[in-house]
């Protein structure tokens, strides 16, 4: 049925580890080469950390799954070096329509904020997303991607993890410091460890159908509540690359999945949606139920759960794959810092605290959209329907219509890694938020702020174009002794600038000044995952030093600081 995409078949390569008499040890093993596992391996490689990725299959996602990738995910992909292919291939819609019964309630334009390198979102089939990630892994010797390799047993202790891998050449054992379980909603690792992901199964079934249109069709997102062609249910239509249109039809709990998947059942419904004239080919169809659930803890000994294995949401609101990629990014720099002995072990605990917060937020948002789309009782339905009726004439009601919202990045204002804010800023950013991009100039060329953040600690400082000797000395100290990269933001190029000091950014659009409330002396400290960990109106070496230590987990409980302040160890 699928004609627009042919799944690549990746070669199984015999690993030398199978010849070893003792289990071979690796610092990191990743289970699952989906969006999460692949992103983890590339990000670790950028930090110089080797990983073995085990996947029981030898291709990317089969059929249509995640399709909407939000700006934050694309910014992470930008850091990982694979956003361009995704944005080039992906499609974006700006215009949408909402229908209720047989009439158009309203249409809307998504007015995304300008001055960002990456778009607010793209629609892209998951198989392309994964394929581009697999392509990127090939740039790194640090990534050892093993297809057709299934973990069949796991032994987990506080010190290490041992797994048994089954592959076409037989079985072998491996040990690792950290095992990252990114093996999806039915995680085998989770099951073998006797752990649970708990939550709510929604009493509903949905049909996904991908169709290829034969003629032009507007690039718009159409959402129907209770349409005449599908009474009492909902329907969604939006565009993916290759002229493929994704259709979601709510079926109700009593629907028979096998019956609903038949082409003769699907066709008349879609014809009614698209109009009598539309000609289309059915590309893919599947029926699904969904769950909003998560594990109580994403860490078990030295096993870390990432993505759907850890937290799963309903598809409304695009928080599945987008949440997964944010979890992966949150974990990698922490593991890298611990492995490179830059941070105490207890830093890893903040993966759980920060991403539990993210998962709860994602579950809350997707549950709210689900409850609006499929009301749970008569009164909820009545309010839903009256909201839609009001929305036709009254704009306030349109803000209540929830057919799935754009996925917004998670922020961590309560994170124990943040330095508390003492200065006042006229900016909606704060410690714990991801940065806002801005167009800039570097060495006379157009560029983007987001290209210079991440992978290490970065301090952005507002400066005057004439730096004095004392400022130079302070900045050199921060760079060389605190090991923090510097972005020096000025209106005009800094005179006699030494490139070894850092990057001189020209705020040509004045959007950094505006978005960060940045003036001379203002400084922002970004973590390796780009999250702002502290900001100040005046530069102070001791404050920056303390903030970096705090962001690395040295002030968390359960740490002890030895007498020599430079030598800090974590209590296990």
């Amino acid at each position, binding site marked *: 049925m699928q004609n627009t995409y042919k799944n690549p078949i990746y070669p199984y390569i015999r690993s030398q580890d199978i010849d070893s008499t003792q289990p071979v040890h690796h610092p990191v093993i990743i289970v699952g080469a989906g969006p999460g596992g692949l992103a983890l391996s590339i990000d670790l490689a950028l930090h110089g950390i080797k990983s073995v990725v085990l996947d029981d299959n030898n291709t990317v996602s089969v059929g249509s799954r995640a399709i909407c990738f939000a700006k934050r995910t694309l910014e992470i992909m930008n850091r990982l070096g694979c956003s361009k292919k995704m944005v080039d291939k992906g499609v974006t819609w700006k215009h949408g329509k909402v229908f209720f019964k047989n009439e158009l309630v309203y249409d809307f334009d998504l007015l995304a904020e300008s001055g960002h390198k990456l778009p607010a979102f793209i629609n892209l089939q998951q198989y392309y997303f994964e394929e581009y990630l697999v392509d990127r892994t090939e740039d790194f010797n640090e990534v050892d991607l093993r297809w057709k390799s299934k973990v069949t047993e796991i032994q987990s202790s506080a010190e290490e993890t041992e797994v048994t891998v089954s592959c076409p050449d037989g079985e072998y054992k491996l040990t690792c410091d950290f095992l990252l379980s990114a093996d999806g909603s039915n995680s085998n690792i989770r099951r073998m460890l006797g752990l649970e992901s708990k939550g709510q199964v929604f009493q509903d079934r949905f049909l996904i159908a991908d169709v290829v249109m034969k003629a032009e069709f507007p690039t718009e997102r159409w959402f129907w509540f209770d349409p005449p062609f599908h009474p009492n249910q909902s329907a969604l239509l939006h565009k993916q690359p290759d002229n493929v249109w994704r259709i979601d039809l709510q079926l109700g709990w009593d629907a028979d999945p096998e019956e609903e998947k038949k082409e003769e059942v699907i066709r008349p419904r879609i014809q009614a949606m698209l109009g009598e004239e539309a000609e289309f080919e059915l590309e893919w169809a599947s029926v699904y139920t969904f769950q909003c659930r998560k594990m109580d803890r994403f860490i078990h000994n030295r096993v870390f759960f990432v993505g759907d294995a850890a937290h799963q949401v309903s598809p409304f609101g695009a928080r599945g794959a987008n949440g997964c990629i944010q979890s992966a990014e949150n974990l990698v720099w922490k593991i890298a810092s611990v492995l490179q002995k830059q941070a105490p072990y207890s830093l890893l605990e903040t993966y759980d605290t920060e991403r539990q917060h993210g998962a709860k937020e994602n579950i809350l948002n997707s549950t709210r959209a689900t409850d609006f789309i499929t009301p749970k009782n008569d009164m909820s339905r*009545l*309010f839903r*329907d*009256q*909201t839609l*009726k*009001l929305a036709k004439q*009254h704009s*306030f*009601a349109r803000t*209540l219509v929830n057919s799935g919202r754009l996925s917004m990045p998670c922020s961590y204002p309560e994170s124990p890694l943040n330095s508390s804010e003492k200065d006042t800023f006229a900016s909606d950013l704060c410690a714990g938020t991801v940065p806002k991009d801005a167009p800039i100039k570097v060495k006379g060329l157009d560029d983007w702020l987001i290209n210079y953040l991440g992978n290490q600690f970065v301090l952005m400082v507002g400066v005057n174009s004439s730096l004095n000797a004392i400022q130079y000395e302070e900045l050199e100290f921060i760079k060389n002794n605190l090991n923090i990269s510097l972005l020096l933001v000025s209106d005009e190029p800094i005179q006699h600038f030494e490139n070894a000091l850092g990057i001189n950014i020209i705020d040509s659009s004045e959007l950094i000044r505006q978005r960060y409330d940045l003036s001379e002396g203002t400084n922002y400290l970004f973590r390796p995952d780009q999250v702002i960990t502290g900001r100040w109106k005046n530069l102070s070496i001791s404050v920056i030093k303390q903030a970096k230590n705090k962001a690395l987990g040295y002030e968390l409980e359960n740490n002890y600081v030895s007498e020599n302040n430079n030598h800090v160890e974590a209590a296990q």
Partner: protein
Amino acid sequence: MRLNTQPNLTDPDTFYAALTDVHRQLDKVQSECVNARLILLLANHIGNVDVIKEALTIAEEIE
């Protein structure tokens, strides 16, 4: 801001009559729809969600 539960209507009798008059010719389902729309309109006018939550709590707790 807190929910004002002190007398605040410019003309209580007129308001009450208008409220009940709306429902005089309606069946139960129609009345429920009107009430729902009315709640949505008034909630938007109040705007502050904490104030609305306070009203919801009072409305829910009285037997």
